[in-house]
């Protein structure tokens, strides 16, 4: 054959003769290939560029016009044939860099096209065997879209061009790619279509049956993760056809289940093993392998092993001792079904072979460690039957497990221990004297080195707390007196709601300190620009800028230069940075104005629809206005000293001490005759604490000293006559809400529990809160309200940093948070003083059911705290659960309630009573009501309570042997322990006493 020249190559490419081209290239040495590489690459690049036929005819080089003509005359089976042919030159002549970086060499189609030419590539590369072959493949496997397929790699391995590859990735590729891949194979003349099926491909390469096919069982791949792709069926088919040894398939599938593979793969392997349909005789041969699987952590695998042992046992082919010795491993699996099956099987085994009773007893003691109450219960039932064989050592082990058993199971365990003690002549064995001495022994747990204390102290004793130091009003308002009376009279425990207006909010421990000086302000802004951990910082910054904006020391520029740079960097539009989001409320403008910077453009549109955020925007813009006046040197403005923001909260939660508010007005605004900003004062009024109002009122100057004066007086409880003034309607609306506190009297019923108000010329604002039937409220103002319930199933997670505007919004009206709760603002659940309204309860229940684990944890926290502080009225919570039953996932809610109940007896009692209220209110009990009932059992047993008559009536309607039926029967059989009521009443006294002490401390200003 004559030497291959570039002209020959060009002719072959033009003829699209791939057979000839590959044949001629195969004879070339690596030097000859190198010599041709540059010209070949140019040809490939030209064809790639100019034969896409989107190119104008005049741009096609002359030497490619033949191709163009042939294409025009439809002489090729496919117009891309010359391109495909040329691309083989890259594989056959060039360095792998051209394949790796095809765009660099202007052959953009190369990688896409080569993927469809696996057979041709195999032919060319096998003949060539370049040095870079193995490294190139390694590189390709790291790419998102590699050019070679498993087929190519396998072909090269088979021919000896590459060493064998035993990596998991190789077999994962085999699993994925050994199938008929759809592609351009017909047109590219590739031969993958030679294999109509995966089986045909395997049969064409019988070496795969020796090793590779078995490795598929040992790696995480699609083969068993997605059995619907057909591998399990194929393996069974190949086994039936005699290509694979059936027994080996059975045993290897079992061995593979001991490997650290993914849950899906293990599940797939388990299904495959069963799909093979092992006979009892085959299973008997595999007994050891099944017993090993009992120790695996995957529940499906353990389940398979137990089922297999069960089948062997039915056929009397299961030896008792080995099974029972290995059984404890099954109880370490997570799910309950294999554990339950294991216990049942153990009982069957000892029935047919009583010699195994001691091992069975040992195994069942291990089963007590399982977290599921059903498993523990069944294990105890079994132990009861085997009690004659329970040794002192095992009895001690059971005693040690007592604290870790589900509460509902403990009476059963105690009963067993009592029986064991009475049937034994030995004295009860103390747990501390025994130690496990074999590895099969149950995991004996030492007690914590530092004893874990319950968050809530259990009612310690029956002594009444010393209440003499507590003010009589506080004793009454905090319900301490009522709680003490109930305990003394042994009345049924009850949670009384706390009226909002009696709660003392001015706690020194939660004070918010204003920014002290310029340095602190610079630092606070710099931190806020980066992240918003605590949204109250925004209020502190507004106040700081308001008071300190005229402080421009000589080194001001030096101090703020870095901050200016930071502001520019962090204000990129739609970056969701603090300043980008804050641009909507003018925060960016405010900061740049304060820092004497050029305005930083940010095209975000202001579209605040609710009053809450609208307040913030208006306050910010008023502040900007003040800064601008300072800059412009407005003499009237400059004569007056800078003033603080009125709405800066004085306490966490957004509260403002009325005394401080009046001090701000008296010290800064009134003497200088500075007008109050409508929105700032309205926001301040909405944030007033209920306590301290009369004191503040006494400090307030005449109402006409400043705008809004009458409204503020009215808000603080003064008997002033308010006349509607549309110019200051926002202050009046706010004052009306603040007035709720002083009008909290039963004779004033809410006209609208949650109202929206419209204001001014068509601008609608939301003023979310109750409108009272208060004769002092001007009629015109009342007219603005209409019913509004912003109900949503969505729960805003107040922990998410970038949602800081929502967190701020939740601080708008801390006194009346129902609307905000219905909007899903979870921060309200963490208010440690106010009794939960139905809206708060609804939010807590929705949060308990959320998909995101963090929100469920938050709901748990909130409920724990609310129970501890007696903020939950169980009847309200139960009612809300019943009403919203269809909105929630009960398994999640019951898990949250279970975590809450575990904290203390008081928590158990509140959870129990709430669930009872829910059960009573549900029109009919749904199929998953066992989730509620099982928690009721747990809590009722934990505190020794029985159910209320109404609950019993409801439960009597549950019949049958369903899980719910059994639980209902168990609940109906509960009897009340004598000390139960006293214990809960004591816990309530403790909680109310703590509340009263807290309020007393607040009242005394400590």
């Amino acid at each position, binding site marked *: 054959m004559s030497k291959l020249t570039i002209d020959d190559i060009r002719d072959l490419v033009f003829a699209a003769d791939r057979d000839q081209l590959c044949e001629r290239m195969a004879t070339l040495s690596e030097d000859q290939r190198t010599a041709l590489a540059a010209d070949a690459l140019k040809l490939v690049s030209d064809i790639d560029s100019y034969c896409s036929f989107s190119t104008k005819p005049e741009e096609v080089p002359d030497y490619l016009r033949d191709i163009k003509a042939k294409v025009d005359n439809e002489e090729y089976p496919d117009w891309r044939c010359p391109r495909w042919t040329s691309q083989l030159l890259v594989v056959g002549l060039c360095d792998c860099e051209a394949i790796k970086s095809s765009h660099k060499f202007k052959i953009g189609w190369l990688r896409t096209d080569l993927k469809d030419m696996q057979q041709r590539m195999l032919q060319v590369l096998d003949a060539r065997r370049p040095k870079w072959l193995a490294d190139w493949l390694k590189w390709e496997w790291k790419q998102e879209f590699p050019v070679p397929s498993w087929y190519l790699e396998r072909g090269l391995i088979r021919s000896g061009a590459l060493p064998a590859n035993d990596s998991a990735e190789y077999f994962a590729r085999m699993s994925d790619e050994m199938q008929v891949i759809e592609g351009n194979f017909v047109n590219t003349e590739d031969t993958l279509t030679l294999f109509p099926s995966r089986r045909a491909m395997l049969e064409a390469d019988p070496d795969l049956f020796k090793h590779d096919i078995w490795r598929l069982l*040992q790696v995480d791949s699609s083969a068993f993760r997605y059995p619907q792709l057909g591998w399990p069926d194929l393996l069974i088919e190949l086994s039936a056809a005699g290509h694979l040894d059936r027994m080996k398939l059975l045993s290897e599938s079992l061995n593979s289940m001991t490997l650290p593979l993914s849950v899906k793969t293990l599940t797939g392997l388990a299904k495959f093993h069963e799909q093979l349909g092992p006979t009892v005789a085959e299973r008997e041969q595999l007994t050891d392998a099944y017993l090993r699987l009992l120790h695996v952590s995957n529940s499906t695998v353990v389940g398979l092993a137990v089922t297999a042992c069960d089948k062997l046992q039915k056929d009397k082919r299961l030896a008792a001792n080995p099974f029972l010795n290995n059984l404890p491993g099954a109880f370490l699996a997570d799910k309950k079904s294999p554990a339950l099956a294991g216990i049942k099987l153990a009982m069957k085994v000892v029935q047919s072979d009583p010699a195994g009773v001691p091992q069975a007893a040992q195994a069942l003691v291990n089963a007590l460690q399982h977290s599921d109450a059903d498993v523990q219960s069944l294990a105890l039932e079994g132990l009861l039957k085997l009690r004659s064989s329970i040794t002192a050592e095992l009895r001690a082990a059971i005693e040690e497990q007592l604290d870790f058993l589900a509460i509902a199971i403990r009476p059963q365990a105690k009963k067993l221990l009592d029986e064991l003690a009475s049937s034994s002549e030995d004295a009860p064995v103390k747990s501390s004297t025994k130690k496990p001495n074999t590895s099969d022994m149950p995991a004996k747990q030492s007690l914590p080195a530092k004893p874990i204390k319950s968050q809530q102290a259990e009612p310690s004793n029956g002594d009444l707390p010393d209440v003499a130091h507590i003010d009589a009003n506080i004793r009454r308002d905090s319900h301490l007196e009522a709680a003490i009376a109930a305990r003394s009279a042994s009345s049924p425990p009850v949670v009384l709601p706390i009226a909002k207006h009696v709660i003392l909010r001015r706690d020194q421990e939660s004070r918010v300190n204003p920014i002290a000086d310029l340095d602190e302000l610079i*630092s606070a802004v710099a931190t806020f620009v*980066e992240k918003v951990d605590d949204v109250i910082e925004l209020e502190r910054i507004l106040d700081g800028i308001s008071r300190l904006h005229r402080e421009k020391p000589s080194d001001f520029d030096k101090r703020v230069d*870095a901050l200016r740079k930071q502001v520019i960097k962090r204000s990129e539009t739609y970056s969701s940075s603090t300043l980008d989001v804050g641009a909507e409320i003018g925060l960016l403008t405010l900061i740049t104005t304060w820092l004497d910077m050029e305005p930083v453009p940010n095209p975000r549109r202001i579209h605040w629809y609710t009053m809450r955020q609208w307040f913030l925007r208006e306050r910010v813009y008023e502040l900007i206005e003040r800064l601008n006046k300072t800059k412009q040197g407005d003499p009237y403005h400059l004569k007056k000293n800078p003033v603080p923001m009125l709405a800066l909260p004085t306490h966490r939660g957004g509260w403002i001490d009325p005394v401080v508010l009046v001090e701000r007005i008296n010290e800064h605004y009134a003497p200088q005759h500075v007008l109050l900003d409508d929105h700032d004062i309205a926001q301040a009024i909405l944030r007033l604490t209920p306590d301290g109002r009369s004191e503040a009122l006494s400090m307030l100057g005449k109402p006409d000293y400043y705008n809004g004066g009458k409204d503020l007086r009215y808000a603080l409880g003064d008997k002033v006559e308010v006349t509607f003034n549309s110019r200051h309607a926002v202050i009046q609306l706010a004052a009306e809400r603040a007035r709720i506190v002083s009008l909290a009297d039963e004779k004033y019923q809410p006209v609208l529990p949650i109202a929206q108000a419209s204001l001014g010329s068509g601008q609608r604002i939301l003023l979310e809160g109750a409108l009272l039937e208060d004769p002092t409220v001007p009629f015109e103002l009342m007219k603005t309200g209409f019913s509004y319930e912003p109900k949503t199933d969505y729960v805003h997670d107040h922990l998410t940093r970038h949602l800081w505007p929502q967190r701020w919004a939740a601080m708008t009206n801390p006194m009346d948070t129902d609307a905000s709760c219905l909007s899903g603002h979870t921060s309200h659940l963490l208010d440690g003083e106010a009794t939960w309204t139905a809206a708060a309860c609804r939010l807590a229940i929705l949060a308990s059911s959320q998909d*995101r684990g*963090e929100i469920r944890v938050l709901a748990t926290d909130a409920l724990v705290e609310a129970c501890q502080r007696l903020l939950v009225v169980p009847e309200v919570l139960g009612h809300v659960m019943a009403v919203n039953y269809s909105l929630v996932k009960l398994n999640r809610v019951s898990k949250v309630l279970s975590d809450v109940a575990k*904290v203390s007896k008081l928590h158990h009692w509140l959870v129990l009573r709430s669930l009872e209220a829910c059960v009573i209110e549900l029109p009919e009990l749904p199929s998953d009501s066992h989730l509620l009932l099982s928690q009721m059992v747990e809590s009722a047993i934990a505190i020794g309570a029985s159910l209320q008559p109404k609950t019993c009536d409801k439960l009597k309607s549950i019949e049958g042997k369903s899980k719910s039926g059994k639980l209902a029967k168990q609940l109906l059989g509960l009897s009340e322990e004598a000390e139960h009521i006293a214990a809960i009443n004591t816990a309530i006294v403790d909680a109310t006493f703590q509340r009263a002490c807290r309020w007393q401390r607040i009242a005394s200003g400590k």
Partner: protein
Amino acid sequence: MTSVAVDYTYSYPFASEVCADEEKPLVRLSTYDDRGSPHFFNSGIAEPAIFADALISISTIVRSHFFERKVGLLDPVVTCGQSRLRFEGFSGCCGVYLQCNFDDSAFTSPIQGRGTTNIDFNEQFVQGLAQTRFAESAQLSVGANDVTLGVGGRVIKEKKVKLPLRWLKGFCEVQSYLTNAELLFTIPAVEVLRFIRGLPRSAGRTQTLWLTAAGNTLRLTTKTGKGTVPVVGTERLRAIEPLVRISKKPVEIWHARGVTTWKIVLTGCTFVATFSPEIYRGFSGEGQALQSLATGDWKNALDQVRSKLHWQGTIDSTEIAEKANLPVAEVQSALDALATRGLVGFDISDQSFFHRELPFNSDLIEDLHPRLQAAKKLITNSAIRQHQSISATDSEWLVQGSGVEHMVRLSESGDRCTCTWYSKHQNNRGPCKHILAARILAFGDND
């Protein structure tokens, strides 16, 4: 500028494997460091199941990446010395540090050999370990003294990896957390197992959750406070579940500055997993030790203390202080400094340092504190000057940054800087380079 990763090649003489030897499995660990492939010892394994589970867990963690779909490629390192065989490693994301310490009771023969080396972990080896779990007895060889190399003595197991400097830095930085960690909870393993299994999936990735005691159990909370430890990324915690499952001893939970350490005690072995404060953060860049490195009192003692290190399993600082005639506090500071150079590690169980030298080119480890170097560079370039002295302890400094001057205020109540780093992290990740530079000038020497 320091490169993010360097090319590194593990050149093992053979691949670690589990092979049958006289019907007992033989676990052959292949070793490699820049000086060769050391052989430490051969022994029987007392509890093959526990040994295998521990090594499988090591493999699981070092192969895991907890915030990207990647596989960790770096092998663990093993240190042998004075009755301890210690494995150390990081998850692929460098957010989980593990230390698995075997003592003599884990083996039928005493632990012998001294040194630190890389250990090859590969997929087949781990699969072999899984089978070893069921063996009644097994043998171990750490390294091999009679390695038959491939034809021509060539290395037959070669792994080219990118060795991120954050991985190396993590080794040095995490020790400062371990030394300062405080034991908060000791919980029965059965309760810990239930807690881990009940954790919500993929929670705590972007928001830190906290662990607290509730009654006699553990529960998650969103509120931090005294007696709570952070749980960042619940799936990270799941990595230790297999070991908690087989533990018969209480699990200890330690805490230091947002970093939690879980200690699981198994027969003959203690497994320690330390979790970084955020899932997207490793331990590198924490800079906890920077301030003391910049101005500490360890410099005089460093060489003397280093000369006293000879692969001790536990380093007695009092003994070294006596031998070197140095105050104990100075020796302790010197050990802290040596930890940041990868020359000692800290064993939380023994509450003492142990000698180990990371098996990498020492040049890589020397330059692991770019922030400290940057601070020194600022001083060298005269890019820092005092602005004003406010009091005996408080002063203001101007430091040249890129395009702006940063104002640093050194104060007893806490240092402050106007740079972005400080705005983001305050002092939670150690001081910024500007504060460091100011501190060096104000209180330390500039060696």
